[in-house]
């Protein structure tokens, strides 16, 4: 029972991180119909920015903020320079360009910062809290992780559904031509969408680094799990991203906990295939499946 509870708490914390990555992917998918395979690599780069600052004895929170801002800038930059020219091309082109960016960023990080595993500071203790006499698998840092993701998600939802900018973003995503006629500067709105997505991704990178260490490939698995979460929820649905993240986090925690941690990626693959077989468009969207 104690094991089950700690796997569950662990699963929720990890699930929130996957949800943040999934949210980033969903934001970009909704805005530009592109899956950004470089999402994790972009987060890795901004985390390296943070650790470089921490190395110079800057406070954690300053480094944290700079990394998030770096995420915003990087997202906007990528959209403007790489995505804009291939916007109207086939999905294959989109996938290959973001894949190229993933490879280039990871290799570039390896050249600049080296391939070794680095530790990354956590602003709060990562030792589990004590409830009564027993220690549980929920640390102050885990609580911070959950809270930070919730804050960003609620912020994005409010932005989307309660502000004029959000309305423009939704209009640009669903009816770009009509939005353009109504005076929405669609290009700028798309850039903003990419920037916000990269911010959510950066947050995930910062939150996962104290647990996983930091190295150029450290977000590979996180991206795959976040992507699985986004697909589970349906690529179009922010709520689906959150639910998908939690489902993946919990499932992987149980699979890893009871069957050994090397089975986690196999578990993610099996879950992904099973869900896609039943609902090829994910759990929260209505897409007509192709028939076999």
């Amino acid at each position, binding site marked *: 029972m104690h094991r089950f509870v700690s796997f569950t708490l662990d699963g929720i914390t990890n699930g929130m991180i996957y949800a943040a990555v999934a949210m980033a992917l969903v934001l970009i998918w909704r805005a530009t119909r592109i899956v950004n395979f470089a999402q994790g690599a972009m987060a890795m780069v901004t985390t390296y920015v943070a650790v470089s600052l921490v190395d110079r004895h800057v406070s954690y929170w300053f480094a944290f903020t700079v990394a998030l801002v770096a995420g915003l800038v990087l997202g906007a930059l990528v959209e403007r320079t790489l995505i804009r020219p291939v916007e109207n091309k086939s999905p294959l082109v989109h996938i290959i360009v973001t894949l190229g960016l993933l490879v280039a960023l990871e290799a570039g990080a390896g050249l600049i910062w080296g391939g070794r595993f680095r530790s990354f500071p956590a602003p709060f203790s990562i030792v589990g809290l004590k409830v009564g006499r027993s220690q549980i698998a929920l640390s102050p840092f885990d609580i911070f992780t959950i809270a930070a993701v919730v804050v960003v998600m609620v912020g994005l939802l409010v932005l989307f559904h309660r502000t004029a900018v959000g309305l423009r973003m939704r209009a640009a995503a669903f009816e770009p031509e009509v939005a353009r006629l109504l005076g929405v500067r669609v290009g700028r709105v798309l850039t903003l969408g990419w920037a916000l997505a990269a911010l959510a991704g950066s947050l995930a990178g910062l939150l996962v680094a104290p647990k996983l260490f930091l190295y150029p490939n450290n977000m590979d698995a996180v991206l*795959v799990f976040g992507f*699985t979460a986004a697909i589970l929820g349906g*690529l179009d649905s922010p709520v689906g991203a959150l639910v998908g993240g939690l489902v993946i986090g919990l499932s992987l925690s149980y699979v890893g906990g009871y069957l050994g941690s090397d089975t986690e990626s196999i578990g993610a693959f099996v879950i992904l295939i099973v869900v896609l077989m039943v609902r090829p468009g994910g759990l929260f969207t209505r897409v007509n499946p*192709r028939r076999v």
Partner: protein
Amino acid sequence: MTTPTDRRAAAPTPVNRRPPDWLRLPRQTLLRHLLLAVVVGLLLFWLSDNVGAFTDLQLSNVAAYAIALAGLTVLTGHNGQLSLGHGAFIAIGAYSTGLILEHTSLPIIVVILAAMGVTAVAGAIVGIAAARLRGPYLAGATLALAVALPSVAIKWSSIFGGEQGITVNPLAPPTSLGLAFPPERWVAWLALLAALIVLVLLANLLRSRVGRSFRAVRDDEIAASLAGVHVARTQVLAFVVSAACAGVAGAFFAFNVQLVAPAGFPLTLSIALVTGIVVGGIGSLVGAVWGGILLVYLNQEATDLAKHFHVSAAAGANGALLAYGVLLIAVMLVFPDGIQGGVRRLVRLVTRQ
């Protein structure tokens, strides 16, 4: 991929500019491809006979990559299904080869065919799942496959040898070639021959009814099914064909490296394969050969450069990866037809003069 310029340029070829009859290739597809293959085969035979062991090994690597890339070209270029997990199929082929060689003493041709068969079955299973998925969903599922598969080898280490993997004994050349015959040249011969056979078979397949139905499904699924093409069956078949090629390639990877271990099949292998078909020229079998040459020599150049500048091997590997990434983006932005597209343009320029 035929671009509008292709069609425009192909139409007004003046009749009197055609080469004389004795220079023209036979009309029949099979005969023409076989003739080309024999000529290229003789050239390669001469080449492999006149180079050192290291170049032979590289030739054999190029052949192995070309086989895998040709299969991926059929799947992605002609059928429109992108696989980001093709390294997993190469791993299945390589592990099958390693395991069969470890437990039996079958002739080498049987081992290669068995590895191909096992991988084709795996391809059918993945293909059935993939036939229901589109664009990013398919990309994600195959990506997850590439990430998951190496841990299978670690989880069931008693069969697959865990992180250490399985050692593959070098292939001994037949005694009729003499005792001093270099084994690298023997493997190179086998690999080049296999590559030629695979390319001829695929070229014929693509020119056939099946190949046309592949492209029909790629271009418009609804139109294809209205025209009587069974869309899902076609997609599964494309997956099986391309996985079978990856299986053969995997067998030669096992012979070349003489070790089959999870570290040999990282996600970057799958991405390198995508780089190969894109930079070579998506949709062209000749492009697959360019891609194979590129992948082998880009890695070699990066390693040499790293040595030259006295930086670590890791930096060299990163350099190669950086080149892959930049090439992928650059080709998509400015040169979407890849190397083969450029060659075609060049040939057209020369023949028009």
